[in-house]
């Protein structure tokens, strides 16, 4: 019997080629799976990814200036910012028109505030000018150069026009420069004056203190996790409750409790004085500084270290340790060569959790950190809530996000992310 090509293709029960039928059912399965997780996916996309992207995009967006003062930005194109001379009359006339429109639409202070981040005084300059400009007849009231300078001598300063021109492009690197203690000037990027540099210092402090907190969590958490995994069930359960109990207490309550413990007239100092370990005049300063932040945050983040460690340690059979000892290992060797390497995935998972949580912590440093123990997130909060410099806050947030991703990548390269276990 001569086989035709169609005979070679395997057919399924309904007469379709098997390959096609298989891929169809696989596709259906995939779609079904996708539909099942669709609510979560859509939720994450709408409530998490989109806001983050829109927030991050603010770190480079700068269309406020060109939108509010379109004619001026256009006219400034032909002005050489480095010439040291004031722009000519057309620029002033364009500005008079722009500021009048802006004042009518009530957007002039927003631009003033935006440019005031770069040069102090522009906020009131815009406010005062707009008040006057509302009454002008743009067609017939010119020339505006002397008129504007008469309203406020600021319009006679080259620096003001330089600031305006430098910060007029629709996209700017200015916020990112500000975020690393630099600034955008007419001549290009420049360092901030030394008495205004703070952000790099805060980034460093955030990283160093988060590392210290992570290590203190490992040191304190490891023995507890070991006990949890190795004690008899009854005692282990009791211990587990002790670990979880603070976890269920409000963060604010726990932070404030540390205040009561650590302050100079607090519990710890009182005990030390009563035991005559420190004199009454030389009570220890343990709060409103780095120590306060490290102690309180270590306490708060400890469960995030203990729980992954515990779930990994639970899977290490105790017989391994006994086997090591029966082969002649000392207690230390048995622990260090046999037990510890198997518990490393738990340490890795706990460290990543604690470190990433710590690096973005806000409320605890705010309450117990004083001035020496605050993090970069406290500065981000200030720019979001108080100074309303959302562009700078977004730039700081982006840098923090990238820093965490880089650290995660480094961890993956050095330790390997497959080596992280949250349990099992």
């Amino acid at each position, binding site marked *: 019997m001569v086989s035709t090509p169609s005979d070679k293709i395997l057919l399924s029960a309904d007469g379709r080629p098997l390959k096609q039928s298989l891929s169809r059912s696989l596709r259906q399965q995939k779609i079904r799976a996708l539909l099942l997780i669709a609510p979560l996916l859509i939720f994450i996309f709408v409530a998490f990814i989109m806001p983050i992207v829109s927030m991050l995009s603010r770190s480079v967006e700068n269309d406020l200036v060109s939108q509010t003062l379109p004619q001026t930005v256009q006219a400034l194109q032909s002005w050489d910012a480095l010439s040291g001379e004031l722009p000519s009359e057309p620029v002033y006339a364009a500005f008079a028109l722009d500021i009048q429109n802006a004042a009518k639409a009530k957007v002039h202070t927003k631009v003033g505030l935006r440019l005031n981040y770069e040069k102090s*005084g522009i906020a009131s300059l815009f406010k005062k000018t707009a008040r006057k400009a509302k009454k002008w007849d743009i067609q017939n009231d010119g020339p505006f150069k002397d008129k504007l300078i008469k309203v406020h001598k600021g319009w006679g300063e080259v620096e003001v026009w330089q600031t305006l021109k430098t910060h007029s492009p629709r996209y700017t690197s200015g916020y990112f420069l500000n975020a690393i203690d630099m600034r955008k000037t007419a001549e290009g990027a420049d360092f901030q004056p030394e008495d205004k540099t703070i952000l790099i210092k805060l980034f460093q402090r955030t990283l160093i203190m988060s590392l210290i907190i992570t290590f203190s969590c490992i040191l304190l958490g490891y023995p507890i996790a070991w006990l949890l995994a190795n004690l008899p069930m009854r005692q282990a359960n009791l211990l587990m409750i002790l670990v979880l109990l603070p976890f269920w207490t409000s963060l604010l309550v726990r932070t404030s409790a540390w205040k009561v413990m650590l302050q100079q007239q607090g519990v710890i100092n009182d005990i030390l004085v009563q035991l005559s370990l420190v004199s009454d005049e030389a009570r220890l300063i343990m709060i409103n500084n780095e120590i306060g932040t490290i102690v309180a945050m270590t306490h708060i983040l400890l469960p995030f270290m203990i729980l992954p460690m515990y779930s990994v340690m639970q899977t290490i059979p105790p017989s391994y340790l006994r086997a090591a000892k029966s082969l002649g290992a000392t207690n230390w060797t048995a622990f260090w060569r046999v037990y510890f390497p198997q518990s490393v995935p738990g340490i890795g998972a706990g460290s990543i959790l604690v470190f990433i949580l710590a690096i973005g912590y806000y409320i605890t440093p705010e309450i117990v950190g004083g*001035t*020496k123990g605050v993090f970069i997130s406290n500065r981000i909060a200030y720019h979001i809530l108080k100074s309303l410099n959302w562009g700078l806050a977004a730039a700081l947030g982006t840098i923090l996000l990238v820093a965490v991703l880089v650290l995660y990548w480094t961890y993956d390269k050095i330790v390997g992310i497959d080596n992280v276990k949250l349990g099992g």
Partner: protein
Amino acid sequence: MNFTKTIMTTASAALISGAAFAESHMSMEMTIVSWGGAYSNSQLRAYHEPYSAKTGVTILNDDSSSTAVAQLRAMNEANNITWDVVDVEAAPAMQLCDEGLAMEIDPDTMLAAAPDGTPASEDFGDMLVSECFIPQIVYSTTFGYRTDLVGDTPPDNVCAVFDTKTYPGKRSLFSVPINQMEWALLCDGVAKSEIYDVLATEDGQDRALAKLDTIKDDVIWVSSGSDTPQLLADGEVIMGATYNGRLFSLIEEQKQPVAMIWDGQVMDLDGWIIPAGLSPERQARALDYIMFATDTQRLADQAKYISYGPARASSAPLVGKHADLGIDMAPHMPTAPENLSRAFLMNYDFWADYRDDLDAKFQAWLAK
């Protein structure tokens, strides 16, 4: 008799239906934003409860005033304004007004006149610092000290804060440049009238920071108005700056051994704004509430619960005794004549310009 009764009934029915007509054009629920704590409580008792009793409106409270400008901006961008009346200080009110985020108010048609007929614009007078701002109270930021920890000569001058020889011990200050820089210059010998001119120069700013440098190690820097009262109560500091109402509560309600320094108190205003862009029903309700809550009697009533001075001239004579403690409230107001004479007025325009710049400098200095 029957006749008059009929007329009365008809008249009252007409009145009720008229009121019902107005009511139907106002929303029956409103969200009022304020500061929380004892302050919100004083508003609850003096304004919200009587207003709800009178109109049946449900009032929801939101304690977000400290971040009101940021949130109103965000609401405006999202085109979804969920607040009806917002309690803010004068400076943020000006900013909101300039940005078009707050509604402009005509005091003489939208606010109640004084009982003697004086129009609201005159009754509030200089307190109307912005077209959108409806003043409510005058408060001040000032110092309290522990009477048992300062020795035999209690401080009577704000510069005691900088005098660590006579008054050794910790003091608490806010970790922001506003007020701290002014006090530093004042105690470095600058006349009250020249402080802002000096502070506008680099040298002046350095001078203020240099003065603060002399006490930097003796200061606990705080960020919220509730910190200093707690630190004073715990004996953590011997003196510290906070709002005068907080100190009053610490001294009179909690009976702590604390007294006040009125000298150098920095006065500021607090009041209402109505967000721009509310629906007509909600706006009508907000205006109705404002008309009620800022009349002469209501403003005087609030002073029964907290020691902030009413912003209306006609309310001052009506300020009586504390509702629970029964003590005379008038001398505890920042506006009481003997306290007022030593006050210092904040310059809003200066801080609108220099806040960002000085804050960066101040934080850099703090971190040093």
